[in-house]
């Protein structure tokens, strides 16, 4: 038994060291790359003075084209949105942006009524993209705050990165191999942080009557974002992107609120009900650029 226990301990130790080493290297190469948005933000926006940043989920990523807005306003902006995320991750991204030397005069927070009304937020699908920074306090405390298996996995990855790298092996380990070879490769976003849906999405039904959605803010992360903006003297602008066949009613108190929920009614400008396509993005960005000048 003694021999077996010695053998098993040696085996576990050898496997542990090998896994930790591979995981450290994997996260290191990712951290040094431009692959995911958090890495791109950390590696390219340090000490860059921006006029505005767009922060949101997939709607933020695909509705406001910062390149077009910059051309139309003469301002300098960047899109720090990540798809498949919610206000919790937006708060984390804002902290990440600031802690890594980013600065902006305004933050355009792209919201959705469902996310704002979610009083019990949970981890988002793409939070693992912050794993290369799991050792940073603001990242780790984000995972500590959330109750889920995935959050627990990301939390323990601070000390045992192999746990997170293994669980998200397709999303972290293999991209890190690519990042090691081509560190400037970006994963589905352009140099200004934008992504666009094609114009050949599914056609939406035309006959739907306009649905009214009310805006209720109960998500605790909204207040946290607001407080962080106040602390860093960033002007917070809330932006509601177009939703096909819907109109959002309500306001955000004293905060500037650009409500473009019913801006676009042509179904050909949508990729699906909540995402505009390439043509829709042009229309939405133009309308927003006009408003941004006056804010």
């Amino acid at each position, binding site marked *: *038994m003694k021999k077996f226990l010695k*053998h098993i301990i040696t085996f576990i130790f050898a*496997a542990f060291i090998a*896994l930790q080493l591979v995981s450290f290297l994997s996260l290191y190469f990712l951290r040094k790359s431009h692959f995911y948005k958090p890495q791109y933000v950390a590696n390219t926006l340090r000490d860059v003075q921006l006029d505005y940043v767009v922060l949101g989920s997939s709607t933020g990523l695909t509705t406001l084209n910062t390149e077009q807005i910059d051309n139309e306003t003469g301002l300098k902006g960047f899109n720090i949105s990540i798809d498949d995320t919610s206000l919790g991750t937006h708060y984390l991204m804002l902290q990440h942006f600031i802690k890594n030397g980013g600065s902006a005069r305004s933050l355009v927070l792209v919201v959705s009524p469902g996310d704002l009304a979610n009083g019990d937020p949970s981890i988002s699908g793409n939070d693992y993209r912050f794993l290369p920074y799991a050792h940073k306090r603001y990242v780790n405390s984000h995972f500590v705050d959330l109750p889920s298996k995935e959050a627990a996995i990301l939390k323990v990855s601070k000390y045992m990165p192999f746990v997170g790298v293994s669980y998200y*092996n397709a999303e972290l380990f293999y991209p890190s191999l690519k990042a090691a070879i081509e560190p400037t490769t970006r994963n589905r976003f352009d140099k200004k942080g934008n992504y666009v849906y094609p114009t050949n999405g599914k056609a939406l039904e035309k006959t739907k009557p306009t649905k009214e959605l009310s805006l209720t803010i109960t998500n605790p992360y909204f207040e946290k974002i607001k407080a962080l903006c106040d602390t860093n003297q960033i002007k917070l602008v809330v932006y509601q992107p177009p939703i096909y066949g819907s109109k959002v009613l309500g306001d955000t108190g004293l905060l500037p609120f650009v409500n473009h929920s019913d801006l676009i009614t042509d179904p050909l400008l949508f990729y699906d009900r909540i995402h505009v396509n390439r043509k829709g993005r042009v229309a939405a960005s133009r309308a927003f650029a006009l408003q941004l000048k006056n804010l």
Partner: protein
Amino acid sequence: MLFNSLEFLIFLPLCFILYWFVVNRSLKLQNVFILVASYVFYGWWDYRFLSLIALSTVVDYFIGDLLSKQDSTSSRKRLLLASLFVNLGVLGFFKYYNFFVDSWIKAWSELGIEMQGSTLNIILPVGISFYTFQTLSYTIDIYRKKLEPSNSLVNFAAYVAFFPQLVAGPIERATNLLPQFSRKRNFTFEQGKSGLYLIIWGLFKKVVIADNCAFFVNQIFNNHTAYSAGELWIGALLFAFQIYGDFSGYSDIAIGTARLFGFDLMTNFKFPYFSKNIGDFWRRWHISLSTWFRDYVYIPLGGSKGSVWKQVRNVCIIFIVSGFWHGANWTFIVWGAFHALLFIPLLLIKRNRSDVNTTRISLLDVGRIFITFVLVTIGWIYFRADSLTIANEYIMSLVGSDLFEARLFIKTNKNLLLFAISLFSILCMLLFEIRAYVKARAEVQLNMLSGVFILLCIFLMGAFKDPSQFIYFQF
């Protein structure tokens, strides 16, 4: 509790420590501990069905006891029938009731007669087919006077519910496993080490091969009409490796776990995809089930004795019953019949016992292995498809003109990655298996270095976010 779950990762070392360091002073205590651990293991999934295991245990224990005391043939027959009635009755109700009601109604409706009948919303208890066959082997062997009844209910209950192999086998014979509960178990380094590495090897086959293949297999089989002939072929081939990785992976973990507790379970898979013909395949695939059917059904029917017609009949019965054992669906019956059709020519030319225990592979053998594998893979389509219509359509589509189209596997980066992982892991497994096969080993043997490599593969290639249940749990 699943072998590839976090719960089991805690459960196994905890049981190991308690078993060897706390309850090791008494054999009886160790057996009680195994029994409790086994019930916890099973109850983790659904504690309500523990009553079925307990019922089967108590009934067979007392019938076994009574059988040993009876000399009259008719009384012994009655007792055996009682055991068969209870065990197969429970199995029949939970597994086959709805199938028979459905088939009955459909058969009459084909004749234009509408029959009334209602199916029940029955949950199939995990592993019922496995432990039912295990307890049956006990009473049948006592009836045949090949086994003395157990004199301890605890030992017998622990034998029936032994957690490593409770839910998906190997289906252990009472003659092999039950006596091990009466013997003092000593831990040996070699046994523990081989158990540990077998668990790791089994996990690799399940988490890396089976679960990654499942990603494509599920897509293709759920909507086969949307895919080209090339994609359907690859889908069928991936399923062949998925089911092998899934089921043999489970068996490896079960055997490895049992070894950690000082038990020796039978080999259940012996590199079946290196089989040179169908007869060889069935000596290597799910050995515990095929030998069970051989000993308790095929031989009592006359086996390979008697006229050619009788031999053919027996082969058909054994394969069809074996197919039906897997599930209450015509697809399994046709799968069994398909294998019978492949086996009968070998029987007729008296080649069904050829290639036993050979480890040499000549160039001709490579061709035979390939043909056998392709035939087995076509059979798996019936096994995997939801209905006979789907299976037939699938097979017909395999000969489409778009044989060299396989866009699904390169459609997205994720697909390409998972396909590459599937191919790499299959290749890796085959290389390890070829090495073991030519060395005439019964299983793949890992050492410290290869063990660490396989563990790295598990962590870096395993499908942890989308784990699928063990396929054989449903049987």
